[in-house]
């Protein structure tokens, strides 16, 4: 999947993947795609909750080796 920006949260624990994902989205424009990579297993549920509460669309999730990959479409 194509993306406009990438944020690597590998090695970070809660709440940093979410808090820094929010920061990464700040300078993006509506409709752009952010790719987030995280190794914290808790980020799977948290990224979904983040998307639901902020209105950003979690368009795709996947796994890449031991990491989790998320594609967020900015609201």
């Amino acid at each position: 999947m194509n993306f406009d920006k990438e944020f690597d949260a590998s090695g970070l624990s809660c709440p940093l993947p979410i808090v820094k994902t929010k920061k990464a989205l700040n300078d993006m424009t509506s409709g752009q795609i952010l790719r987030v990579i995280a190794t914290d297993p808790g980020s799977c549920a948290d990224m979904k909750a983040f998307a639901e509460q902020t209105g950003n669309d979690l368009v795709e999730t996947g796994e890449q080796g031991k990491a989790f990959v998320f594609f967020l479409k900015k609201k």
Partner: protein
Amino acid sequence: MSTKKMAIIATKGTLDWAYPPFILASTAAALGWEVQIFFTFYGLQLLRKDLSDVKISPLANPAMPMPVDMPVFVQALPGMEAMATMMMKKKMADKGVATLKELRDTCIECDVKMIACQMTVDLFDFDKKDFIDETEYAGAATFLGFAGDTDVCLYI
């Protein structure tokens, strides 16, 4: 959808108890919530510019996981608190847990309001110069004015 709000009272000043207010506040702020933390009694230590004195103690904390079984009288020996703090900080760094300073800075960046309880500041003769510049000073009525209108209100 109206903006959600959260109010937290932070009353503890040890390393372990310092995390919940800052974790919840920074996450809520990332979700777009409006957040205020009211620091009172020992929680005031978390507003200091220098957070290096925030410690954890194994004493009177039987639930704290220890690498080896340690009788209480050993936990009370001089230096044990410093050692436990050092070990905890190292473990946190190894696991990618944010430092307190990092979380607090994030809260400030996201406009989390930090309010120090004026009464306890006076009670302990704390010097306002030691606290971060973002600190505001107020009392119970100010906190309740905000807390009465929140979706989540926590006492930590």
